[in-house]
Structures are given as structure tokens and as C-alpha cells.
């Protein structure tokens, strides 16, 4: 118990101390996680909606697979991305292993199934509601996709935040493809893992509290935007 209180003190000191190194790590975590969430949403939202409205063979199997991918083990993703990006691998010539770009790639792979599976559910519910209306207006299924995405945008914001959360909390894959290089690919989670390795548990947990605070702030911001726009454009 004592250690947990001690780490709260450390967290407050870290936040209050405005250590430039800490903030550069926080900023990097934020940038990479937001980039992965945006990239994951750009792929996952249309994919989810297409599966929701589409009729094609193997659709049910695809839904089951997509739902199963919610539990995609991140270390496996890290390993596969590592082997792809390694100099000895097929994408090695780009030389992006152990760079922030490699982290974005791995996190995006983890975010896409979450966004796609949850968006599929939201879009399917909306499709059930508006289907008759849309078809009576002669809107094709494909053309209905943007309408549905736009109409469910407030629920989809939560979906994207779930993707952001997955990216921000990721450690296994990020460690493997990023290498936890000081000042280049060291993000909050790998810094926490490093301090844990060094046995500095209060500092590790203190960093953890900072990370949670940052994620909380981002979610509060997203919630605020949602409330505001729901009031003004809803």
C-alpha cells in the first residue's frame, strides 16, 4: 500500500515538475497513438459499415473473425510487423524498423479490428432503423455507407476513442518494433516497463498515473466535443 501512495506523490512531482524529458515522452505517446487511431479509423470505420450493410458470401464468417480479432495478441502483431519491417524481411528496404513509423504501423494493425468490429455493430443497428427509408429513396447499399457513418458519428467517436485507448496502452508490440530507443521510440508504456525493470516501482507507477491522466484528458475532450456538437448539430 505504501508504494502506491509513494507513486502518487511521484506522479504529482512528475506532473508539477514539468521535466522536459517526461513531456517529450508523453507527447510522443500522444502523437503516435492519435496517428494510429486516425489511421485505424480511416480503415476501420468504412470497413465496419460496409460489412454492416453489405450482403456477400462469407459475411457471417467475416464478422466472427473480426470479433475474434478484438483479442489479437499484441506481441504476435509486434513480431509479425517486426519480421515484415526487418532488413531481412519483405519491407526491409524502407528501413523504418525502430522508428516511430514502425510503432504507428503496429498500433494501427491493433486498432483496425476494434474500430471495424464496433463500427459494424453501430452501423448495423442504424441500418436496421433506416433501411426501409433509404431503400424507398432508391439509395444503394454502397451509397448508404457514408450516410450511416455520418448519422452514427457520435457513437463512432466512442469507437475511435476505444481504438485510441488500445494504441496508447500498448506495450508489447511497441517494445518489439520500436526498440524503446531513448529519445526516439521511448513512449510512456515502454518507459514504464523500463523503470519496472530497474526496480524503481514508484517511478514506474508514477509514470503510469501520468499516462492515465493524459488518456483521461483526451477522453474528456472527446466527450466535450461530442456533447457540444450534439447540442448544436444534433
Amino acid at each position, binding site marked *: 500500500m505504501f508504494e502506491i501512495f509513494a507513486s502518487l506523490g511521484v506522479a504529482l512531482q512528475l506532473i508539477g515538475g514539468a521535466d522536459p524529458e517526461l513531456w517529450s515522452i508523453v507527447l510522443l505517446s500522444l502523437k503516435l497513438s492519435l496517428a494510429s487511431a486516425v489511421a485505424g479509423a480511416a480503415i476501420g470505420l468504412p470497413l465496419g459499415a460496409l460489412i454492416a450493410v453489405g450482403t456477400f458470401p462469407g459475411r457471417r464468417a467475416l464478422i466472427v473473425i473480426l470479433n475474434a480479432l478484438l483479442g489479437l495478441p499484441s506481441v504476435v502483431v509486434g513480431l509479425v510487423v517486426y519480421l515484415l519491417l526487418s532488413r531481412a524481411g519483405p519491407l526491409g528496404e524502407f528501413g523504418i524498423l525502430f522508428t516511430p513509423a514502425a510503432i504507428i504501423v503496429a498500433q494501427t494493425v491493433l486498432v483496425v479490428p476494434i474500430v471495424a468490429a464496433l463500427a459494424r455493430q453501430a452501423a448495423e443497428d442504424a441500418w436496421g432503423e433506416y433501411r426501409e427509408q433509404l431503400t424507398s429513396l432508391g439509395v444503394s447499399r454502397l451509397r448508404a455507407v457514408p450516410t450511416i457513418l455520418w448519422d452514427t458519428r457520435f457513437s463512432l467517436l466512442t469507437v475511435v476513442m476505444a481504438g485510441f485507448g488500445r494504441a496508447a496502452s500498448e506495450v508489447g508490440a511497441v517494445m518489439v518494433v520500436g526498440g524503446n530507443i531513448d529519445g526516439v521510440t521511448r513512449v510512456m508504456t515502454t518507459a514504464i516497463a523500463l523503470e519496472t525493470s*530497474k526496480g524503481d516501482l514508484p517511478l514506474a507507477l508514477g509514470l503510469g498515473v501520468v499516462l492515465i491522466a493524459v488518456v483521461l484528458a483526451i477522453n474528456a475532450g472527446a466527450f466535450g466535443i461530442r456533447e457540444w456538437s450534439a447540442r448544436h448539430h444534433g
Partner: protein
Amino acid sequence: MEMNLPRAFWRLSLTWIAAATAAATLLAAQSASAQGTFITVASTTSTEQSGLFKQLLPEFTKATGIEARVVALGTGQALDMGRRGDADVVFVHDKVAEDKFVADGWGVRRFEVMYNDFVIVGPKADPAKARGKDVIEGLKKIAAAGAPFASRADKSGTHAAELRYWKAAGVDPTQSKTTWYRETGSGMGPTLNTASGMNAYALTDRGTWLSFKNRGELEIVVEGDQRLFNQYGVMLVNPAKHPHVKKEAGQKFVDWVISPEGQKAIAAYKIGGEQLFFPNAKPDR
């Protein structure tokens, strides 16, 4: 529901384009910042976690203008990184494995850089009565007492050394009947956390131990044996095998760490007044 589909469609598309542009700009900014000369060094957790690199690398960058990016792994994994061509320089501590690495053509040439030493840590009460100067005797006593021992078991340099000591002690701790030998399969720090948690003995390099904070009941029980010396070597990854290796910059790193300047910087690194690494590069190279 209002049915202005084209408008909704365009708004959505514009949002996507804006988001994608933002992401692309971010990526471009990231890779632009990586344009300066840098090399990737595959090294071990002991050098990184002891804090040596925090002191050494800025001096190297100041002297040469080259940024050295360190990926800290176990020696086995670090050598593998070199074999795959994902590192320009390998800086590790397992002479046997390093010589093989060079003999197989993956490394250009191995240079000795420095040494530190291993110690056996264990509970203050020392239930196995392992305390002393002799590492082999100490391990024999731990095995005889069946006292818990936490092993890295991760093919690191420290793990390789530990297995050599067990062999010299005539003990095979990995046989299935032993319950006191706990293989953590993780790095030095996590293994020490485990040892601290269950009051087990463990072999560790002195640097990691000195910078390790979660010691619990553990302290050093065996130290000072000649056989506990732990030699570090540095190698440029062979450009003949991997043409993209940054030959000049990587060679500059190798040259610098074995230069008088680099050696002085290594000797100057201390934790609590205690020197961690002892430079011993051979001047005649």
C-alpha cells in the same frame, strides 16, 4: 431523418481527407526529424539499464556529430539483430557467441572494450550458506540446499555465463526434477524483481544491481572471483552481408569507444562513487 445524402457524403469525405492529411503530415515530420546521421546499436540491457549509455552517447555525439540509437536486448537477441541487418553495430558481452558471430561473417572484427563483473545476490539470511568469493562453491551450496535460484533463461550473455558456472559446478539445474531453479525467461531487471519477490538467489551483472532499486531482502553474497569477470566486445555488422549498414558512421562508433577518449568516458561513469565498467581496449589493435 433529413435526406441530403450528397452533403453528408462530402462532409464525411472532407473530414477523412483532413484526417488523412494530418496523419501523413505527422508521419512526414517524424521521418524528417530522423534525417540526421544516426546509427543503430544493438546492445544489452546491462549497459542501458545501468545508465552507462546516458553518459557515453552524448559524448560520442559531441565528438562525431553522429547520433547513436541503442536498442537494448539480451546478447543473443542483439546478435540476432545484427544477423538480420537491423543494427549497424553490436555491443555485447558473450565472447564465445561474439567470436562465432565474426567467424560466420556477420561481424567485421571484434574489439574488446571494457569489463565489469557478475555477482551472486541472495537473501541477507543466506539460507544456503553460499556467501564467499568462490562462485562455483557458492552455486554448489545453493544447489545442495535446494534454495530458490532465479535464472534469466533468455539466451543473454548473463544467462550463458550462468550456465557455464553451473557446468563447472557439476550441477544441471535445468533437469526436470529441480523445483528450486526458476527460469524467468526475461531480462536482468525483471529477473531481479522476481528474485526479490521470492527471496531467491540470482546471478547479475554489478551495474544492473547497483542501479536496481527494488532489492527487498537481497544483497550481494558472492563477488570478487576472477571467473566472474564479464568482458564486453564491439563489432561493426559486416557491410558485405548487409550493404545498407552505415559503414563509416558505425566504424566511427567502434573507433571512438576503444579510443583513449571513449575509454576515459567509460571509466568516468559511476553510481554512488562506485565505478561500474573498467575499460580494457587493447591499444595495439
